């Protein structure tokens, strides 16, 4: 399949070709691929594409240590309104 047309990150519309280009350039961890391509920066924050990025990187470069295989986890788990953050009760 044409890697220019195969979409890896649907939120940000990032193709396999773009991910491969980032790896060719020298990126060897998924966070760097994210920063270079925007894959994983969208609404789902990598829920869908994180494992794809890891798989592509592993296929190209071999097994990865955990520090390079996962996107940095950040809150919130799913999108939440500004007003809901301000109103949430802390306990």
């Amino acid at each position: 399949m044409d890697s220019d047309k195969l979409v890896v990150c649907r939120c940000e519309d990032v193709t396999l070709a773009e991910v491969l280009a980032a790896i060719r350039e020298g990126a060897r961890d998924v966070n760097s691929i994210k920063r270079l391509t925007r894959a994983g920066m969208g609404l789902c924050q990598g829920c869908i594409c994180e494992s794809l990025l890891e798989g592509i990187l592993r296929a190209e470069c071999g097994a990865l240590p955990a520090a390079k295989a996962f996107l940095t986890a950040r809150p919130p788990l799913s999108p939440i309104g500004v007003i809901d953050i301000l109103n949430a009760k802390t306990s």
Partner: protein
Amino acid sequence: MCVAYYLVKAGLRTLNIDQGYITAGTSGAGNGNIIVGNRQPGLLAELARRSLLEYERMGNGEMGDFELERNGSYLLLETEAQAEEARQLIARQEGRGLSLAYLSAGELAEAVPGVSAKLAGAVYCRDDCSLNPLLFLRALRRRIQDHGGGFAFYEKVGKIQRTPSGLFCVYTGAGTYRSPVVVDCAGVQARPIASLLGEQVPVAPNKGHIVVTEKVPHLRIPAKLRDWADASDSQEGEPVNTVIESTAAGNLLIGKSEAGTESSASVSLPTVRAILDRALRFLPCLREVKVIRIYTGLRPRSGDGLPIIGASAITAGLYYACGHGGDGVSSAPETGRLLSRRIAEGRSERIMREFAPARFIKP
């Protein structure tokens, strides 16, 4: 990387050793602002002004596009006292080449739709710019490579030794590199790197939070919105003040916090609340927007808030370019240009006295 860029242009051979990839550090976590207009014009504003000239030169053809935009920024005024302070600053700046303009509340509301009607006005800083740090770093790397400079990515420096002949041996586990000159430009890692050579450089991580919203094309902000006030203590969280901007993709970035020395990357909910609470005072329509990510970055802050640029007063051949705090993007090119002149030609420009490492590290 700017240091390497000016060194290779001066004909020297360089190797950048990086524990990650070009985007992994603070440059990849910030918002890429070049802030020239400040409440207190001073050394940082001068570094930014000179850096902007370099960015413009690089952006004109040599490096290709890195989304350098002279989009300006609005310093938002909440009180009549701030407005008076702002008018006095503008009067003092008259004729000094810094382009600041005062906007009344009505003019601000026209320029920035959605801004709070309670504001007293704003100062528009026309020279403030932004760039895309990732595109800039990629372009810079290509230019350095074109000039023969090398890169060692994913290599962490574990040991630096000096040979009797004065060469440095830098060990990374993957390789050993020898050079008569070492530049410590390791950002938040500057302190551990310097300590490998027995020098204590006071650079500590200063954590900042940024909130990222969903894409809101209807809320596109024409220029960065900045708080006139300094970061002040919030009720529960870290000190915050406001900066809001639109990204090219249409998300909003809402900041920001100033922490003490805090090296963990964890997110503090009270701090996030303080940031959002303050941002709503300027842009009430944010209430309806959804947050998709909250992240932190570490600013490499020096002991006195000014960068450390120049030769070590103790170790011959060791140089520093670190401690830029939140002004790394604003001051990187001029830092590189000044230090490369010092290394390649032995010339110290006058302004470098203010940044001398010897103010902290004395023989």
